[in-house]
């Protein structure tokens, strides 16, 4: 990422691109199987497009290219929305962003584009720091997601469960989504189990005791400790319950999607919609006001930033450009 950022010197972009691709591939490996291969393929392509174009949008020097890559990223995001079943939002995103915001971008870019590559497009501000910070944030978010949504399955525990299955019937192996073994401070082996919603151990003391007794004896050998040194804790992390598909298809995946969304919007969420509308109006007025206050560009010729980059200091604004904001103001 850092290598790909514009740094004002040659080289590194190819290397950065390759490294980025590699890391993206690693990321892809974290992905879980969605079901059918076609599902996987569609999601993989759309997701990869979104991420790659986003990376390119961030790292390209020319604002024009950035905007174009951003547009592509938006399209892919809209595709993700579609995959999630939010058709209206997917379309809305394309319309609003691609159709309005992005065009505005291009307008601004064209109106405010200095000749050639500006040096500030070729130099990034603390690129390494920014890249590291972003990476750390992504890392933490990913770790959290992975830790919560796909905890690993300790093979010893799974083997013990599978072996125990005919006798115990307390915890069928297919109902276990995750199993982790940690060592506590006092030497006890803690077995954390993540079960599906059907098991619901949290309130059933008897079930829990039975599970503890069953698993402790069968795990004593593979874990290499005495049975009383093993403590089984199921469902320490409360996962959101999975709703069944029928419910979902009646509601959020309803074929009458837009109608449902509209009903929701204008009944339950009416206030939010009103606030959004007001916000838009205020922003409209604000944008016009901002561009109206200072029409004379010569009132404050400023540039206190010393430029060492050869003659690209403050540029006297030609009088013809003074009329530019009116276009944008009209657009807003």
């Amino acid at each position, binding site marked *: 990422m850092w290598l790909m950022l514009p740094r004002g010197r040659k080289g590194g972009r190819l290397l950065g691109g390759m490294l980025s691709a590699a890391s993206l591939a690693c990321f892809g490996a974290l992905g879980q199987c969605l079901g059918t291969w076609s599902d996987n393929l569609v999601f993989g392509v759309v997701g990869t497009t979104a991420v790659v174009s986003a990376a390119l949008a961030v790292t390209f020097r020319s604002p024009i290219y950035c905007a174009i890559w951003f547009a592509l990223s938006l399209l892919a995001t809209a595709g993700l929305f579609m995959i999630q079943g939010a058709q209206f939002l997917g379309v809305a995103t394309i319309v609003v962003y691609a159709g309005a915001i992005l065009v505005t971008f291009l307008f601004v870019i064209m109106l405010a584009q200095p000749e050639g590559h500006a040096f500030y497009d070729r130099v990034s*501000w603390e690129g390494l720091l920014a890249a590291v*910070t972003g990476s*750390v*944030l992504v890392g933490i978010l990913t770790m959290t997601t992975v830790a*919560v949504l796909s905890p690993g399955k300790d093979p010893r525990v799974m083997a013990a469960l599978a072996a125990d299955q005919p006798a115990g019937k307390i915890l069928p192996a297919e109902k276990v989504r995750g199993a982790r073994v940690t060592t506590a401070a006092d030497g006890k082996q803690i077995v954390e189990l993540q079960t599906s919603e059907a098991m619901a151990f949290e309130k059933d003391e008897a079930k829990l005791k039975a599970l503890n007794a069953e698993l402790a004896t069968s795990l004593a050998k593979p874990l290499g400790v005495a049975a009383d040194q093993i403590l089984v804790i199921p469902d320490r992390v409360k996962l959101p319950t999975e709703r069944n598909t029928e419910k979902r298809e009646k509601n959020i995946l309803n074929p009458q999607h837009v109608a449902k969304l509209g009903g929701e919007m204008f009944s339950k969420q009416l206030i939010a919609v009103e606030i959004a509308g007001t916000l838009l109006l205020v922003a409209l007025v604000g944008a016009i006001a901002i561009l109206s206050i200072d029409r004379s560009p010569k009132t404050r010729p400023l540039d206190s930033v010393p430029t060492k980059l050869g003659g690209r200091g403050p540029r006297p604004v030609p009088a013809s450009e003074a009329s530019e904001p009116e276009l944008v103001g009209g657009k807003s």
Partner: protein
Amino acid sequence: MNALLIAVPALPLAGALFVALTGWKLRGLSHWPIVLTIAASFLCSLGVLNHVREEVAKNQALADSDPAKTVGFEMVAPIWTWLDIPDAYQSNQPLNTPGGKTVTTAPLHIDVVLRADALTAIMLCMVTFISTLVAIYAAGYMHGDRSYWRFFVYIGLFVFSMTMLVSVSNFVLLFCFWEAVGACSYLLIGFWYQKPEAAAAGKKALLVNRVGDFGLALALFLIWTNYGTLDYHDPVEGGQSVVAGVLGQTRLANPDLFVHGGVAVAICALLFVGCCGKSAQFPLHVWLPDAMEGPTPVSALIHAATMVTAGVYLVTRCTPLFMAAGAEPLFMVGDSPFTAQMLVAVIGGFTALLAGLIALTQTDLKRVLAYSTVSQLGYMFLALGTGSSLGIVAGMFHLFTHAFFKALLFLGSGSVMHAMGHVIDMRQFSGLRKIMPITHATFLIGCLALAGLFPFAGFWSKDEILASLHERSHAHPVATEQAALQIDSSKQASIDRDGYQHVALLSEETPHKHPHAAHNPAFDTTFSHGLYGFLYYLAVGCAGLTAFYTFRAFYMTFYGELKVPAAAGDHAHESPASMTTPLVVLAVCAVFVGMVFGFPTHAFSDLLTQTPSLAYKTIADTAVEPEFHVDVAFWGTVVALIGIALASYLYLGDRKEAAAIAKASGPLYDLSLGKFFIDQLYLVVFVFPLLVLAYLCYAVDRFLIDGAVNTVGAIPVAAGKTMRLLQNGMVQFYALAMVLGLIVLVWGIAIYGS
């Protein structure tokens, strides 16, 4: 009558406040409110005096028929209660109440009570009269000054403070106004504060007075711990005080109730330390000559006639305490005790001599007069130190007459100064009698009065002092005293066992015997007679000195060739009427007050001795039949005439001999000219070590304490300097900071949240 008494201090205060508030508008008219209120105050004082006289007369008539009747006369005017702390005083030593009972607790109760007796009434009249004349004089003298109104505010405040000082009836209030007059004095000495000498003189006066005031404060503490009250008077109707006043009728009627012994001596000695400061007695006299940097009316009013006599007033007021100290020795000289009153006398005499010697050679006219004032104050203390009714009356009478002629002399010198363009060095002018005839004539009268020539005021008072000293050294033959002692020896033995010296008891039994001699069997009057005899000759000598330096100054100023300093310009002239009128009035007084109130009529002494403090038996019994000692008067006059003649010989003419004598006397002359180098001595002994200490403290404060504090302050500064580097103005940097915070937050939730 009480309203009149209250009006005396209240009027000048009102005038001062009025001028203080409106002075910026009144400007050149600022003297009117002050002059009018002080004059009104004088009239009120006369009313008070008259009332006191009538009452005294009535009282005396009563006293003749009933000896147990109260002594003297006092009128008491309560105003308000300033402070009341119940049971502030807890004692294992019983306190006396007017009812004859004893109590062990007493409240600290400070009534603002004005109290007039003969002494107060005389002081009030004298103060307000002189003040009125000086205020009128100052209207001319200070004319055109930038801070004209400020001057009169101070004068009004001073008169208020001074009248309060002499009329309050509580030691704490006395101390307050003692300080108040000191503050006014400070403000007026440093009136021209832009002048470095004036500012320094003000500071010096304040600091030297602190030494004396410290002694006075200690005396007050001792009085409180021993008497359980600080009031002069006995408890008044409706007051919470229960203990008999320190100088109240109860104690005066029964002097046993006074505290005796070493404590009494300590109280007296410390009181006298305070008086030394205020009245410029050796060794605290150094501030008064420097105080002449103030405007001349101030010198006349405060530093000659009124404030500096507060010490004399206080000693007179506290006479019973001095009597109670009795013959308890301060220290022993051989077998003979050196008493507190002897201390007063010796210090007074020494100061009179010292100041007189210094005054011989000074060339600054006002300074000569200042040393003369110191010398005359010494005279007064000398008289008070005799401890006899005659001596105390003489001292107070000298205070009274001295106020007139010394104010006259100062105002005269002010007149000269005014004409000479504020030059006061006598070497720079001479022969002024032709251009300043009125000043010359009045100054001459003042000089004659000061020199003590018949029949001027000074003659009578000086003669009384000399007579009292003479009396003290001769009047009580040893044989009589011993005879008296033998009569009372049996009684004496029993009394001595309880450690008290019952002055009054004995003197009742041995009327007309000197109390000092009476109550101590071991008392050897040889020493006291010798001492007072010596002081008598010293006083006579001082009279000669006084006459000499007075006329020396007079001749140097008004005789010889006409010489006018350049500073006077070409307008050397007689002073305006507003200045000469007070001069003439004072001159008339200087001629006549001695005759009218002094020996020929006994008006002064008859009235003064009816002051409760002076009327009680112990002191009254020391009174002797007033008689005119021809030999004393003769010698006093002769010595004064010799002084005048010598001055005339040396300073009328070309003054060659004076220079020759000065040269011949060599180091002695230098000693006198250098004021015996006392200032320099103080500089080395006190000022320099204190300066070193001050710089040491400054260094500690500056580097140690400030250093610590600054270090504490530097920590946030350093932190701020570090933190401000973060404020680099880059939007992205701020965003980065936000993101870092977000990361910490998310990380914390991820680790600890589940």
